[in-house]
């Protein structure tokens, strides 16, 4: 927990430094008609660096033994995270509907060990329902891929 705290605070300090750097490029002072573009971000960045510095010192002084995540916790978290990332990658190539079907079906079979029939039913019905609700009813277009192009959508 202590290391995670230190890393996060350091990262945020770096972010603060980038903000301050960009703000000074834009000008932090007073122009003819008011504060320049960099004025507000500059002070946000300065305060962020200062607050994180204190957090760093406080965290460094504390003896934290509890780990950020235990091995037993990290497993389930990664099992949710990487399929979700895979969904986003797939969406770029195959469109949302096909990816959502593949993703939901895979997850159901892998984690839940549901029967193939149930997996197939969800993998087909869920994207279809999403399609009709969002695309047809609310007229919000979703990313599409080769399958939709082939179907002429």
């Amino acid at each position: 927990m202590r290391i995670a705290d230190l890393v996060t605070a350091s990262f945020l300090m770096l972010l603060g430094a980038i903000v301050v750097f960009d703000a000074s490029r834009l000008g932090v002072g007073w122009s003819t008609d008011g504060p320049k573009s960099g004025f507000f971000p500059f002070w946000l960045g300065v305060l962020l660096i200062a607050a994180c510095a204190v957090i760093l010192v406080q965290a460094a002084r504390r003896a934290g033994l509890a780990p950020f995540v235990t091995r037993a916790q990290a497993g389930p978290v990664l099992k949710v995270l990487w399929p979700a990332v895979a969904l986003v990658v797939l969406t770029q190539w195959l469109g949302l509907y096909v990816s959502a079907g593949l993703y939901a079906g895979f997850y159901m079979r892998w984690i839940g060990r549901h029967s193939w029939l149930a997996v197939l039913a969800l993998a087909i019905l869920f994207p279809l329902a999403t399609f009709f609700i969002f695309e047809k009813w609310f007229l919000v277009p979703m990313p599409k891929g080769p399958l939709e192009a082939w179907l002429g959508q």
Partner: protein
Amino acid sequence: MGIENLLLGFHVAITPYNLFVAVVGITLGTIIGVLPGLGGANGVAILLPLTFTMPPTSAIILLTSLYWGALFGGAITSVLFNIPGEPWSVATTFDGYPLARQGLGGQALTAAFTSSFVGAFFSIVLITFFAPLLAEIALKFGPPEFFAIQLLTFSSFVGLGGGSPLKSLVSILLGFILAAVGLDIVTGQLRMTFGLVDLMKGFDFIIAVIGLFGIGEILLSVEEGLSFRSARTGMNLRVVLDTWRILPRYARTFVRGSFIGFWMGFKPGGATPASFMSYAFAKRFSKHPERFGHGELEGVVAPETAAHAAGVAAMLPMLTLGIPGSPTAAVMLGGLIIWGLQPGPLLFKERPEFVWGLIASMYTGNILGVLMVLAFVPFFAAILRIPFAILTPVIVVVCAVGSYAVHSNMIDIWYMVIFGLVGYVFKKLDYPLAPLVLALVLGDLAENALRQSLIMSQGSLAIFVTRPIAGAITAVALLFFALPVLTPWWRRLRGAVVPAQGAS
């Protein structure tokens, strides 16, 4: 002045279409409140893009109804599954779950819903009368006053939010920084884009909310190991009527909870402390404090009344000042801007049918809501029996759809994943997420108020102190900011004095 405006509002709220919208909103909201990983704030965020084509009044009715539904849904999971869907439902689990385990789940739920309704109704009545007055006062506010109120909003997160004050401050700063990315509308310059086209549009609060609260919450809940041990609902008309016969005994608890809730609620982040405070008071004034925690009905009534009174009261500053009191209200405020409405006191003058339609819909929405949840509890509780392996991908896909729908931009789904990770890490390290979201929504408004104030004063910060109203608000804000430093110092001082007196 109040009554005919309210009648005008009911005229808007009680059209078949708007009532239908309210029913849809409450149903979706209750489902969202029951599901782990989806709460009021990101439910509203996901649905927001779908409302762009609706008339603004119907759109806000849909979103507020969703919010009421989510509040009711939180009570269902707290009582039946011992899972608080929202932080302010935590106190409800103390006595709600023991009651459900004793087979009195129906009683506990009836008490919870009825208390929610009473608390909410109390706040709505107060809003009906106070909102126009507050808006009238706020009409005289200039940029310095608005900036001072922003300062007050964020100072209360730091000073009264609990947890680490420095980490609250970091969350606020991060929200403002994210809000500043992109085009500066005043000077037309690009800020913090570093030549990247994707950064030019900036970060949308909707995607931040979906990632931080949606994806982050799922990651957290799988880490804790989701296990639903459901108690039986045991809900039927007889139980409802029998419980209603008992409830008047707790009249004092209802009144106390409502006042605590309203008072805490119009300040940001107030619902959670309000629910705990109301529970603590009920326990202290009870004749049987030892029964609390083992299934005392009053222990359900107290936090639920306060939480809902607070949840509704959060709408008051959003409507009158354009400052949201909770993350969900912040998302709604973002919605107002997208629908082309300028949030703030002028709204009462320029769009009375919108404001009063919304206020009237709070009455209809809560009446419909309490009847619907009472009638359909078993259906909503059944949602949690859907296997986890089906629920998770469905929630993730719905979040992705909601993120993409905002700008039809693939990069937004990536931002959602990144915000999800940030939300997970921040939650574990005790960085609060609510101030980040509020700062992200209010960023441009706050910066403009600051700039205009400084232009008025030729660059002198004294303008926030010398104007009477702004000065008073700034003073309170500074006090809140200083509170985390002052409190230990004050305690040490008192701690040093008391033994000294004892020695002499």
